[in-house]
């Protein structure tokens, strides 16, 4: 379980996140919505340990972010908004590269299966020749190599076709259910959030988002 209490983040005089508290249960997919600049990416960076909060506490399965940083990081999978893969490598080489640097060992077959589960079949194909959707799937697959309990996705489907979106969504639902992975998902597409998420977390004060997420 992810437990966030009174989380606050300031950048100088600007208050980005103020006294935010929430929790995510294992197997739950939570959508994170809010207008641009509301602090979605900042919150994801705090939860991903990339950035440090001004105050408040975060705990993952009882492990404190402040005191057990290394153990916490082993349980986090972060899917950045940018496609963070080696463009000159093939899909296979990318998976092998990050498996070698991962904490746990995964066989080549397991890596291959991971890609196939996401309908990413271009195993030997160079990334630079893949479509946007395939690149996004690889971006997600790499983040799952070390089998994280908490998966943080920063607009993972931006700019890709509907089929790939649906495939990624289906995979995430399956993963949450089968592996009891906690998923926090940001997107500007409220239809996608509605289709995919169990719950929504609204940050910021934009009335548009307040009205739009009433269906939850």
């Amino acid at each position, binding site marked *: 379980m992810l437990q966030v209490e009174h989380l606050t983040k300031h950048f100088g005089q600007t208050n980005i996140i103020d006294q935010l508290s929430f929790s995510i249960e294992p197997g739950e997919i939570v959508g994170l919505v809010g207008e641009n600049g509301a602090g979605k990416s900042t919150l994801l960076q705090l939860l991903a340990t990339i950035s440090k909060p001004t105050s408040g506490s975060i705990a993952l399965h009882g492990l404190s972010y402040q005191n057990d940083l290394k153990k916490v990081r082993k349980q986090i999978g972060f899917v*950045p908004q940018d496609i963070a893969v080696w463009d000159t490598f093939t899909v296979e080489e990318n998976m092998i590269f990050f498996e*070698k*640097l991962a904490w746990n060992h995964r066989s080549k077959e397991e890596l291959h299966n991971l890609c196939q589960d996401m309908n990413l079949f271009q195993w030997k194909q160079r990334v630079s020749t893949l479509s946007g959707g395939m690149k996004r799937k690889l971006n997600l697959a790499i983040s799952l190599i070390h089998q994280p309990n908490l998966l943080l996705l920063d607009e993972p489907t931006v700019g890709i076709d509907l089929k790939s979106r649906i495939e990624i969504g289906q995979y995430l639902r399956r993963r949450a259910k089968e592996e009891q992975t906690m998923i926090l998902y940001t997107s500007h597409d409220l239809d996608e959030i509605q289709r995919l998420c169990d719950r929504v977390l609204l940050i910021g004060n934009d009335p548009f988002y307040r009205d739009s997420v009433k269906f939850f």
Partner: protein
Amino acid sequence: MKAVIITRWLFIKRSMLSFFFWLLLPLVGALLLFAFVDVVEDDSYVPIGVIVEEETELANDLYQEMETSDFVAIRETEHDEAIRQLQQHELDSVFVIHQGYQEGIQTQQRTNLITSYQTNRSYAYTAVKEMIVSHIQEQGGRYQAVQVINQLSERYRGESLWSAEDVIQTSKQIQAEEQLIHASFQYASQAEKKDDEGSRWEIWHIWALLAILSSLLTMDWLIKEKQSFVTQRFYFTKLSWHDYLLLNGFLYFVIWLVIDLVTYVIFSVGFDETMGVVTLLSYRCMLTLLSFCVALVWKRLYVFYAVSFLMACMCGLLLPVRDMHVINWLHPMAAFLDNQITIGWLLCSAGVILFWYGRRRRENAAS
């Protein structure tokens, strides 16, 4: 380290040609340039024909003196053949050491000892003639000294008689010991520099210069990889980003070192150009750390390439004037070329990297 080797191999196998090109550039480049300099030097000798008509000690002495000259290539030949070659401009000029040369020197009869031939294209004739005249004067002067000493000995009824051999031998000894023409000065605290140090272009000079360029350019992987979005992923890997970079830097150091040791063996065995192994090791260490630092500083690849070429050019241009104290102190190649351990640049580069590493670790721990 195994993970670093495997992941680095994934990059290297994609650019094998350029990787080996830059890796082998110092060795292959130095061998090629050295061979080229040798050929050019051979071609730059002026061919001079010499006909020795008598086999005496003084005639041979003159012949050997001409042979030791740095700018002429002596060809001993027959008179008619020498004239034919001169007419065809295969020889720059021809000198005939006539029968009776030794007797003429000994009796101070210095006319018609040598006949010379030149053409309108003989540009080295005057220089060679001056060299021969100078040597004849030197030889003649010694025999004149023999005569004067004997005359003085007879006039003043000296008890000891000096033989011609004794006088000549003593004269040569004094000339060798006193360095009558050449004199050098240095500060009291400064060690005397030997004549053969510093100014010669040896194979290690060429290698050291090319090694700077290749070390810098091979380190471009760091710029390329730090520009990538992939860096974000290193928060969630067993190696942090800075550990990954450092270990890769170390891997390159090991690869370079292997090539350097091969170079060391080739240069030592093939060219008899020795260099201390520790000197080589310290230089390679410094080059790795320095190129790592430069790659850390710059963000744009083309700026990094420009800086790399500029640094290599500056090092090359400043080499001929590295005898100047300040330049010698600042030049990254100076210690290596003097066969000494590179310390200054090594410590500076290591200091910068330690500072960078410490700061990044603190940032990472704080995030």
